[in-house]
């Protein structure tokens, strides 16, 4: 049986939200002329979420699939499992906490049909406390600036993807927030649409305030990986250039001061020259080490690197 659309919903301790969620999605996709499957991924919930999921009607539309984890692995892993298990040609991901509105799903599908590879939601009018909204705004600016994919709301889980694109994108640690950034290698056609957003009714939010720092370091990591995928040796190039420049400056100062009344400074600058010269060498060799690691794994990285070589196109049926 071929499935057209898979809706992936990771849930973690959402016993009160499961049934309303199911009903909302069922009603939202009832009018669609496609086969829809609904994949719930239970991320090792401690409450009665799985029991509630099993109580849902198994027959009829949409096709219901429940993936149960052994224990809590985190949202990215849950998302990944959902993406791996899903059989649809278009994948839609959303949060399990009813803050996204499933009635937006048909609009996402329209955008995919219009030729976009990736459709992201934008919670223009967020119903959260400012202490969540503000860090998120800063983070989105940062993400857009660093990755060159200016999306206004990376944190919105409601997204739709063409399956053959998203299945190529590697996700690890807490990368689900950066899917658009990670896919940027393929230069996908991204559409952004405003979605409805509801305040939380049941359960509690699972995010803290320390996210800015995490987002920041994760971003540097992602930038590294993305640059590396395009041209491995150029990767530390910028940094090496800067350190080399400092080396040259210090060396010049050392020479210039050598015969003046500042001869003492000359020694200090010679020391600085040595330090930064050593650093430049270190960085160059590190870049080669990176190249070595990358080369050793080139076979398994091929699908990802392919994204850069062979951007997201699609076959016309």
């Amino acid at each position, binding site marked *: 049986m071929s499935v057209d659309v898979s809706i992936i919903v990771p849930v973690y301790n959402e016993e009160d939200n499961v049934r309303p969620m199911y009903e909302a999605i069922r009603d939202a996709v009832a009018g669609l002329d496609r086969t829809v499957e609904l994949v719930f991924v239970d991320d090792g919930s401690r409450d009665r979420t799985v029991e509630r999921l099993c109580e849902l009607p198994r027959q009829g539309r949409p096709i219901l699939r429940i993936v149960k984890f052994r224990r809590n692995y985190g949202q990215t*892993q849950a998302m990944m499992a959902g993406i791996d298990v899903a059989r649809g040609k278009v994948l839609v991901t959303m949060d399990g906490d009813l803050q996204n509105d499933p009635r937006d799903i048909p609009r996402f599908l329209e955008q995919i049909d219009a030729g976009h590879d990736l459709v992201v939601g934008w919670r223009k009018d967020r119903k959260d406390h400012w202490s969540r909204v503000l860090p998120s705004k800063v983070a989105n600016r940062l993400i857009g600036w660093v990755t060159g994919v200016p999306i206004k709301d990376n944190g919105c889980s409601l997204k739709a993807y063409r399956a053959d694109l998203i299945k190529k994108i590697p996700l*690890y*640690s807490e990368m689900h927030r950066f899917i658009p950034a990670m896919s940027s290698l393929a230069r996908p056609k991204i559409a952004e649409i405003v979605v409805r957003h509801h305040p939380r009714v049941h359960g509690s939010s699972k995010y803290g305030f320390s996210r800015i720092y995490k987002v920041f370091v994760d971003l540097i*990591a992602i930038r590294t990986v993305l640059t590396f995928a395009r041209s491995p040796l150029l990767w530390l190039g910028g940094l090496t250039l800067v350190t080399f420049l400092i080396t040259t400056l210090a060396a010049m100062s050392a020479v210039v001061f050598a015969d003046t009344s500042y001869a003492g400074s000359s020694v200090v600058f010679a020391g600085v020259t040595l330090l930064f010269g050593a650093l430049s060498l270190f960085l160059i060799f590190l870049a080669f080490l990176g190249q070595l690691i990358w080369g050793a*794994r080139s076979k398994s990285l091929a699908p990802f690197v392919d994204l850069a070589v062979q951007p997201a196109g699609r076959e016309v049926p």
Partner: protein
Amino acid sequence: MTLPTSDVILGTPAIPTRSDQTSTIPAPGQTARPPTDLVLSVVVPVARETDTILTDHQRHALALEILGPVEFVYVVDGHLPRTTSALEKMARASGGTVRVLVFNQAFGEAAALSIGFKHARADRILTLVPEPQVDPADLPALVRGLDRADMVVAKRTSGVGGSVFGAGKMEWVLKRLLQSPFADLRCRVRALKKEVGEEIVLYGHQHRFFPLLALRHGFKVIEQTVRPGDGLPLRDTSAPLDYSMILDVVTVFFLLKFLKKPFRFFGGFGIAVLALGLLATGWLVFARLTFGTPLVDRPALILSSLMVVLGVQIIAVGLIGEIVTFAYTKDMRDYRIDRIIE
């Protein structure tokens, strides 16, 4: 991207079949017995010769009888001829409920436990030591605690016969260092579900921190107060050993926490050092230009430059770590699916 192979999807653990287990490790006295009706596997690593092993076994077996059919897996860690022959005799007489695995060398308690978990046929496992660390009468309650959690750790009330007094040093350090909630890690009596044993590979000294590891892996671990048994205090109470174990546990937690995101670790340190170095250098240059504070005859500029260099190095190494992680990330699908309900 190819879909992961079906064994990942179904979460089937990579456990060797019983036939190749017996070929790698001699298991005298093992007779075929359908594993279906077993409710509990008791894993007992034996690391030194004891004369009381038979009486201890009887006490434990008697206490656990009320739970239903129980199997005992003794793992003899090293060359212990007297104990091995006693266990062997017992295994032959038991009709399959007692199995003995003998290592040809001492591999350590962690290895013994891991092998014991692999051979356990029941869904629930209880780990014991040959000495009565815990009053056997409290063991069934400990196992029943698994209804509420994935792992139940015994916590001995201090005083009578136990070894809690004076031994809380390690727990104290772990509590400060890693927010360990456990009060009695010295007690090796722990009940766990089989999947905990399957998923956490123990090596080195890690059996001591087993509950902590399970907790960090996302399993639910509870402590249950038990009465101490009348056994001798455990032998490994020397301080140097304790601190080497702390190193061990720091390694483990580094791996657990940063294996998939090395840059969160390196980046934090590197950026801090780099920022400090840049600030110091900036200040020195500023002071030289405006106040004319000389840079000669003091190492200030060299030190601040050194800090910048160090910061950049830490960051660069962290980025390499990230490249390594990423290069291997395709194999890093670490979720295990319990089941798919369709």
